């Protein structure tokens, strides 16, 4: 399989992720979009690992690493979302602007 296919898929995934992060109001969906972006990167890593025939498979190793970090990140992120919901009864990103300049 030519490397272009996974690369294009990864780019599409990444773009969807960026769109989600920038445009969605729901914090959980934003977190999910972040996951999409991470996975786009993972796809790239694996595809290029194969394409370049890396003996050490550093791409795959790095992918495992990213998956672990993503899991941790989602854990913390969801915890924050939960805490925010408990105190404010809302998880819409554009309503959480206490840190803005008046």
């Amino acid at each position, binding site marked *: 399989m030519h490397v272009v296919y996974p690369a294009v898929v990864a780019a599409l995934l990444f773009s969807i992720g*960026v769109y989600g*992060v*920038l*445009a969605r109001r729901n914090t959980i969906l*934003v977190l999910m979009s972040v996951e999409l972006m991470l996975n786009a990167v993972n796809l790239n890593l694996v595809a290029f690992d194969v394409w370049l025939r890396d003996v050490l498979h550093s791409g795959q190793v790095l992918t495992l690493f990213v998956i672990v970090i993503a899991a941790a990140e989602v854990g913390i992120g969801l915890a924050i979302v939960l805490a925010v919901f408990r105190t404010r009864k809302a998880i819409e*990103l*554009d309503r*959480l*602007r*206490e*840190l*803005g*300049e008046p």
Partner: protein
Amino acid sequence: MIASLVVVLPFAGAVLGLLLSRYPHGRSPAEDLVANKRAAWFGVVPTALSTALIGWLAWEDTPSTSVLTKIDTGGIAITVGLEVAELSVLTAMLVGVVALAVQVYSVGYMRGESRYPSFSAFISLFTSAMLLVVFAADLLVLYVGWEIMGLCSYLLVGHWWEERANSRAAIKAFLVTRLGDVGFLFGIFVLGFAAGSFRIADIMAADIPDSTLVLATLLLLAGVAGKSAQVPLHTWLPDAMAGPTPISALIHAATMVAAGIFVVARLYVLFPQPTLDVLGVAAAIGMLGAALAAFAQNDLKRVLAYSTISQLAYMAAALAGGARDAAVFHLVTHGAFKALLFLCAGAVIHHVGSNLLGHMGGLRRSTPVTFWTMTIGYAALIGLPPASGFFSKDAILYGLERSSSPIQLLLYGSALLTVGVTGAYATRAWLMTFFGTGKIQALPEPAPGTAHVFDGREAPLSMLWPMGVLAVPALLLGFTDAGEFHLAPAVTALVVALLGAAFVYVIWRGAPERDPARLLGAFRDPCEQVFYVDRLYAAVFVRPVLALARGVVRADDHVVDGAVRSTGRATVGLSGLVRHLQNGNAQLYVTGVLAGVLLIAVGAVVLG
């Protein structure tokens, strides 16, 4: 060795007086009294010791040089040393005696003054500086003393600084003399670099080209004119009379103003003819102008101040005419009799409570001691035999008569005319002070800056003693050099002086209550205003400089500070715009980051 003691003793007195007079500190009247008493001892004793040591030096009469240390500057070394020679011992004797008299005198004059300790300490410091100038073996050491004198003059003129006029006079004196001192310092540099040494003996022995000498001495002359109040830098001296009278006697009559003449006499071999001619022209103008100004003044101290300018110009004329010894002789006699005159004037002012001649009159009976001592002073000033001024003026006139200077006629004519005017103004002041009817009125409590009013009595003994002691040299000092006496110029001068005096006497006799200065007629106003020199300086120098200063202040306020302030304002304004971006929506921030990354990526691709 002894010379260094002579210099250091008054300095130690000054330090002790400043540090210990008020120890432990207190401000109550009783403590003031203790402090004043202590300060008086700190002032009088070192000066007396120093004067005694100078007397010893004069007795030994052996020229000597002692070098304390040589400061290696990398360029030309500075020799910290003192040199004892005939001229320096003579001048130091004058300084010591007058300083001692003034110290004793001010004990009485400044009685009850809460700032007396600093006053007497500054006098001691001044004495030390003047002695340093007199004994210095190195031009830079001389310059140190020269500047300390200027500082002390400033401090003491402004002693009663509560009055604005006094502090202004002090600043004027400081600035004008400083103007001359810049020239003086550069003159020293030129001489030092030309001779490769700052030692006076080395410089005098060095072979310096004529053009360099002319330049250097002309620069020195600027300092001399500033310090000795010679035309065109004379304007500070009359204003400096705002200081206490003992200061006028010590600094502005007998010693500091004579320092300029002393320096010229000390370095006389270095002065080439062109410089002496410049000095001569300034002196010829100064002596007559100042004498005429003295005639029209209404303030007793100002009369004496202009008289000082005139007499200093006399010495300068003698130097210009080649009669160095006569100039030094007159320097010493003038120091004695002018200090005496000022001390007497202080007693008169003390008595009357006013400086103005118009408020005086008839003091002959109520203050006999002051009358007689001041009469001796005036006699010496006019040049009546046997007072000291008679002999020294005779020596100067004789010297000027025989002078080979190209401007000999100008010098001689001006000197002779001045003798006449001197007789006139001295007689006027004498008559208006001591004769006629008394005009003393009960004055209100005097403001700071004027002396205390005493009720119809003589001044206290501590003031009368110094006057009596100074009257002796003022009267008799002339006989020390009587061997050099020449009859013809003496008779001429005496006749001219008596002519001037008699003229004033006749005018005064006609109407004793009116000012004899009216005989000047329409010329009186220019004389009283000193030929509008002050106004001219104000128009030509002071006002443009002030305008320039205001312009600089405005530029500083509006351009420099304005730039700084508007930078701040612009930053605040811009940040006010930018802060609207910080609206709290994290997605907007991320959009910004992404836009930035895209921009950089596109930039890297396009430009890379």
